[in-house]
């Protein structure tokens, strides 16, 4: 069996990261936490919980952290990589299902979609459904790939995808950049249903309307002149 690595970007997540890492350790051979210049004890908590911590000296944003995490996974010799959020909104069991799907070898990229009905599919708050739909439409118009959950943080990459991916964006717009890579590199895509877990904590940390608008603006500008 290949080596499975979970990558968790984290910025000021000291209250949740330890539990997320402990759960993730059960689903993967290695867990890499990218501490994106946190001002709290995210690194310590993650390392105590069993993660390999890679630390950014200054905050670079979600895209920058994911790029570093994927590079670290490649150095560790990963055969498959799953990215998940540090705020507890993803289940390690779903990461394990993504690894299983990738192990079949016929898929390069897996999206854990909160929008497909499946086992244990939870409900998303209405405004999140709307934001997500806007994100999907925008991603489709800009990059020409339709996916049911373009903004999902739970994704799986095959060894081939890990080796060839070239993330250039630093911020939240990286979610759509993954989709762009699917199209440009002709990766074979699968979506598997995952439950939408929303805690008060994860809602407070998620994308606000302002961040959403900023992300959308950056995507559009980059598409045409970036």
């Amino acid at each position: 069996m290949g080596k499975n690595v979970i990558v968790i970007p984290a910025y000021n997540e000291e209250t949740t990261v330890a539990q997320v890492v402990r759960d993730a350790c059960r689903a993967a051979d290695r867990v890499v936490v990218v501490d994106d210049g946190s001002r709290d004890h995210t690194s310590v908590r993650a390392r105590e919980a069993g993660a390999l911590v890679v630390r950014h000296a200054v905050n670079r944003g979600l895209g920058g952290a994911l790029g570093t995490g994927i590079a670290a996974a490649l150095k560790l010799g990963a055969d498959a990589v799953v990215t998940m959020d540090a705020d507890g909104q993803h289940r390690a069991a779903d990461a394990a299902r993504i690894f299983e799907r990738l192990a079949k070898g016929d898929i390069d990229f897996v999206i854990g979609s909160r929008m497909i009905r499946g086992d244990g599919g939870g409900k998303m708050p209405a405004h999140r459904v709307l934001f997500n739909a806007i994100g999907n439409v925008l991603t489709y118009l800009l990059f020409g790939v339709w996916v049911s959950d373009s903004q999902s943080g739970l994704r799986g990459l095959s060894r081939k995808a890990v080796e060839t991916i070239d993330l250039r964006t630093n911020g939240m717009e990286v979610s759509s950049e993954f989709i762009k890579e699917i199209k440009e590199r002709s990766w074979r895509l699968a979506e598997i249903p995952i439950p939408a877990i929303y805690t008060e904590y994860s809602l407070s940390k998620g994308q606000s309307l302002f961040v959403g608008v900023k992300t959308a603006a950056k995507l559009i500008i980059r598409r045409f002149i970036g």
Partner: protein
Amino acid sequence: MPFSAIQLVLVCFGLFALSRVFLRFRRGGLPLVHLALWVLFWCGVIFAALEPSATSTFARMLGVGRGADVVIYLALVTLFYLLFRTFGKVEDLERQITRVVRAAALKEMDEGPSPTSDRPKG
């Protein structure tokens, strides 16, 4: 013909800007091509301030009604172009910073954490 106040202000500012351009060039912070373009630009500004009727001739050539209008249009186009270039430069810088930060983080991963690396930032 006596100078109006606005002409004086524009000429003074043009000369000030030119002096800054030369200063930067002398310090080696400006390539020769940029020096030439900026000198051309600011000399144009000074010329237009001293000889406003010349802009009218230029405006007629371009098919715009008034000399003042053509100056505004050109200024807007220049500003937008510079804004676009600045945007691109900032993006490049952001990417480069990320590359540097990433390289340092991966190096630390190879060597193991330093005694101070768990200390919170700031």
